[in-house]
Structures are given as structure tokens and as C-alpha cells.
């Protein structure tokens, strides 16, 4: 049995095993200590800006005929949910006496959040980013550099996110002793999916409290976008046992690992991946760089199999429409990734009633996407 029934595992070359074992042991020892919890709480509150609000959206509610709330991870420092994980893992790295952190990034959001955590906690930071992404996300490259990180361009493979993960793994194995690999989503070999999920689960815990304060009850539905799946697991986890709450994960149509993938192994875990009939990894294409990844966290594959979470897709056009709608109606420019979750609203309009409470995880803000959106006008 693996971590998530048959999903998960440690499909890595032998040299990395000892580092994963060390990480697992240290994490279990450190995570519940008073010191660690106190430091993490403090950082999340004073530095990252938690708790983030749960905003009622009157205009969307009127338009779609239900009560719509937005969990505002776009207001977290850095502009996305990513910092919950990077602050947590960087603090863990510090407690493990590592001097250095390395990370992959696609759109650059995780790279920026890692660079922030590295700067804040005094850890040397190196980021691996595909050449393609460096070209389309110049501003984020500059932000990382300002934050003191070194950005390495990756030219192998498709020169995108998956190749940046490969390069991070290759680099990590050369410097296991003093370096922590700060992976950006609930993917990768065990124990990463669990660690990232734990650090992101603060989203769901806050949401539960907030909705109870505002509505005196739990929501009927929660919707989140799924790339690797960290913001989605982050908000869903707290509600998994509440079987009558409908949980929906929205993948990008051009990189829908759960909806269109097959079981296999990519980046160290057994999960669903987009592959050819020969087992080669497929190229992906999404307007949202953060969703442009051919794999998905193993825990999602399990919830799909158990039918606990419903997975669906939104295409580029639907995401763009949702992006514009929220900008105009609510004065919030959502990340294109998060816009995939918003794009689910018109599709459930017929199924919901006035009193139904629907929460959307607004995983990030869309400033980074302004140019990309303009290209499609």
C-alpha cells in the first residue's frame, strides 16, 4: 500500500531515497513541535497576511442564482496560495539545518513565493524555469532576481514546467546534504504530496470557520482549479469527510491529467498522467502556465477513483470569459488558473438554488496574466 492507496510512492533513483527518508522523518518530528507551530503561525500572520478574507460576491450570486463566496488567496503576499507552502517548507528546511533551497517554477508564481520565503528566512535560493516560461513570464523572473534568487533556464525537453521539475531533481541529487528541494505542488515522490497538502490545508481550515461565522453552516459546493492540485487539496481537505458537500476540481482542457490521463509514473509518484500509447509524456497546452503540467497529485487520483471529488475541465475560452467577468463585476482580476474554477459557475447554474452556498477558491491574482490576456483580445 502506498500513501494514497495505490497512488503515490517513491519512484526515484536510489540516490534520492535517503533524502526522502530523512525528510519524512524530520517532518514528522518537527511539524507538531511548539516552536515550529508558533514560528509558522507567526510568519503566516505577520508576513504572509493570513487569514485571507472570504468575500461574498453579490453580483456573481445574482447572476448565477446561488450564494457565491470567494476565498481570497489572491490577497496572500506574493499574489497566490503558493506562499503557504513555501513558507512552511522553507521553515522546515531551516529546522533541518539546510542552507539552500531549490525549486521548479512554471508561470513563476512558485518561484517568486520560494524566493520570498528564501529571502525572509535567509536561505540561498535557486530556481529552475523552462526557457519557454522565462520568455513568457519576464516580470516574474525579474521579481525572483530582486528577491535575491538565482534563476536557471532549462532548455531540455519541452523547456516547460515538467522539464524544470526534472532539472530540479537532477540538481537536488548532487547536493542532498545541504539543500532542500522545495516542490511547488502536491506532486512528486512521497512525502512531498503530504507535506505540501498539510501546509496548504490552512486554506480549508480558515474557510470552514469563516463560512460558519457568516452563514452558520457549511457550504453546499466548493470549486477549485487543479494543476498539480495544491490549492484544490488545500481547500478541500478540511471538507473531505463532509460527504454531502460537493467538491469540484477544474482542470485545464489542454492539460487534464485526471479527465484525460492514464495511470503511470511521472516525477516520482504513481498517479494519472498525460501520456502517449507508448508511455511517453505528452506535451500540454494551456493558457494558464500554472496548469500546463502533464501530471497531477496522487491524492487527487485517489479521490477521483473514490468519486469523492468530481473532476471536470474548462478550456482557454471559458477561462478567459470568467477572467473578464470577475474583473468587471467584482473589481478583482483573477489569475488565469483561478479563472478555470470560476468558469464552472455558468455550468452549475441550472443545478443550484438561491440558498445554495458555493465557495470558489480564488487561488491567485491575475496581474501576471495581463499581457497573455491581451494577446487573445
Amino acid at each position, binding site marked *: 500500500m502506498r500513501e494514497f492507496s495505490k497512488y503515490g510512492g517513491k519512484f526515484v*533513483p536510489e540516490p534520492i*531515497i*535517503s533524502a526522502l527518508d530523512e525528510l519524512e522523518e524530520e517532518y514528522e518530528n518537527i511539524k507538531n513541535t511548539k516552536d515550529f507551530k508558533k514560528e509558522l503561525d507567526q510568519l503566516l500572520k505577520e508576513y504572509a497576511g493570513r487569514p485571507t478574507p472570504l468575500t461574498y460576491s453579490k453580483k456573481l450570486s445574482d447572476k448565477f442564482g446561488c450564494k457565491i463566496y470567494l476565498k481570497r488567496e489572491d490577497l496572500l503576499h506574493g499574489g497566490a496560495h503558493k506562499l503557504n507552502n513555501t513558507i512552511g517548507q522553507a521553515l522546515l528546511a531551516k529546522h533541518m539545518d539546510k542552507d539552500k533551497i531549490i525549486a521548479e517554477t512554471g508561470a513563476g508564481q512558485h518561484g517568486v513565493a520560494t524566493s520570498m520565503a528564501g529571502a525572509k528566512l535567509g536561505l540561498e535560493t535557486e530556481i529552475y524555469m523552462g526557457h519557454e516560461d522565462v520568455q513568457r513570464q519576464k516580470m516574474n523572473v525579474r521579481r525572483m532576481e530582486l528577491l535575491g534568487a538565482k534563476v536557471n533556464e532549462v532548455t531540455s525537453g519541452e523547456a516547460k514546467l515538467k522539464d524544470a521539475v*526534472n532539472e530540479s531533481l*537532477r540538481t537536488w*541529487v548532487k547536493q542532498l546534504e545541504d539543500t532542500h528541494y522545495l516542490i511547488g505542488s502536491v506532486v512528486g515522490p512521497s512525502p512531498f504530496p503530504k507535506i505540501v497538502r498539510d501546509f496548504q490545508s490552512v486554506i480549508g481550515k480558515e474557510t470552514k470557520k469563516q463560512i460558519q461565522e457568516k452563514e452558520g453552516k457549511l457550504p453546499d459546493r466548493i470549486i477549485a482549479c487543479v494543476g498539480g492540485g495544491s490549492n484544490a487539496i488545500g481547500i478541500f481537505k478540511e471538507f473531505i469527510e463532509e460527504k454531502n458537500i460537493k467538491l469540484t476540481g477544474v482542470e485545464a482542457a489542454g492539460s487534464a491529467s485526471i479527465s484525460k490521463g492514464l495511470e*503511470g509514473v511521472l516525477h516520482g509518484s504513481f498517479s494519472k498522467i498525460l501520456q502517449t500509447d*507508448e508511455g*511517453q509524456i505528452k506535451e500540454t497546452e494551456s493558457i494558464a502556465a500554472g496548469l500546463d503540467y502533464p501530471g497531477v497529485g496522487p491524492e487527487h487520483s485517489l479521490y477521483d477513483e473514490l468519486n469523492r471529488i468530481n473532476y471536470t475541465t474548462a478550456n482557454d475560452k471559458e477561462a478567459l470569459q470568467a477572467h473578464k467577468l470577475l474583473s468587471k463585476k467584482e473589481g478583482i482580476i483573477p489569475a488565469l488558473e483561478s479563472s478555470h474554477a470560476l468558469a464552472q459557475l455558468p455550468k452549475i447554474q441550472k443545478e443550484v438554488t438561491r440558498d445554495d452556498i458555493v465557495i470558489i477558491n480564488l487561488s491567485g491574482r491575475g496581474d501576471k496574466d495581463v499581457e497573455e490576456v491581451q494577446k487573445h483580445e
Partner: protein
Amino acid sequence: MNELKKSFQDGAFIPYIVAGDPDYKKSLEIAKKIIDAGADALEIGIPFTDPAADGPTIQKAYARSLNNGFKVKQIYQYIKEIRKYSDIPIILLTYYNIVYNQGIENFYQKTEKIGVNGVIIADMPPEESKQVTKKIKDKKINQIFLVAPTTTEKRIKTISEKGSGFIYVVSRLGVTGKRKNFQETTKKLIKKVKSNTDLPVAVGFGITKPSHVKKARKAGADGVIVGSAIVDKIEKNKKNQQITQYIKKMKQKI
């Protein structure tokens, strides 16, 4: 006696190439030349799009092969053609997703039938090997595992029990690729592995020069695997004759 094990009796020189690199036909010719030059066993990589254990040289070889149209299912034909030419022990190296996608049972059944002697799955440590070892229990094929500088003695013992054929010692922390020196730590590692297993021990990752072969043998290695240094010559489009000469020089030091 196990054919693969036998090849280690007087020391084994094991070159590694990628099937289909630079294309199917040429890689078949190269394989034959390498056999003629005196290789004791041949390791053949089945290309995968995302080889996380490999450095740039072998990554590029995988990409060349795939870009020139190599299909995983061609591996069976490729091996058959080598088998027609020679009965040299053959070891396949690939990544888990390739084997899983072929169907574990199907893959081992077919490879055994065409005379493959061993399989290495670069991203399958013993803890993930249950499904594979179950399927090969009564097959002649050997499952070979890696030992790294970070592997504990206890793990070496487990690996020795789960694997067969030989143990592949990863000479350094890192990925595949050429390098200048043979480190002192590699010698210690070879000794550590030898004292914890009865299987032959082959060392690979970074073996480039004849002096490396000599040092590895002196430290107690039963075999030496050379990949990037050969693949690099294929990339640079060197004449097969140069590859042959290189292999002869390396083999002399076994």
C-alpha cells in the same frame, strides 16, 4: 549458471547505448561494432521523454532516438536482431512508466522470450518493486537494482536479496555524465557493497577513461559500465571505428 553472472568471472566491460540513437539502423550497427570490439555484456537504454536520472548527454540521446521515430515496441525487434548476431548478455535500462505502460507481465514475458538477461528500472527502488519481482519470480530474467553513496548497509543487504544478476553501483551523487576523476569515495563505496553482497558488483556513472576502469577493478568492482562517454561519441557523429578503438582501450584495463 546464470549467463549474466558468468560474464563477470574475469571482469566485465559493459558499454551502454540508447536504442534508436541516432536512428534505428545506425544504433544496430553500433551495437554490433561494440560487441565485436570485445564488450562482455551490453546495456541498452529504451528512451523516455523524462529521464530524471540522466545528465545532458543521455537526455539528448533519448531525444534523438524519439525524434527519429523510435517506438518502444521496436525494442523487441531490435534485441532480436542483436540476438541473431551474438549471444552476449543484454541488459535493458529504462524508466518505470515505459515498463508499466507496456504492461509489466507483457514486458517481462516478451523480453525473456527474446533473450534479455537483465532489466534495470532507473526510478524503481526496491520499495516500489513488488509488482515487478512478483511477475519475474519464475523467469530467467534478472532484476538489477542500484546502490548509491547514500545507501545504508542495511539497504544494500535488502537490495542484494531483492535483486539478482549484479548490483549497479552509482559512483557518485548525481546524474549520468562524463567526468575527469575517479574519486576515493567511490573506492570505499565499492568495498562497502562488496562486503555486503555475494552478487557481482558493477560500477557506473561517470566512468570515462581507461584509468577509471583500472581503479574500479582495483577497488574490487567485478564490472564497469560506460554510458555517456560512448553516447557522446555517437552524438558527435564519430566514426564507428573510433568507438571500437575506445572500447578496446577501456576493455584492456579490465
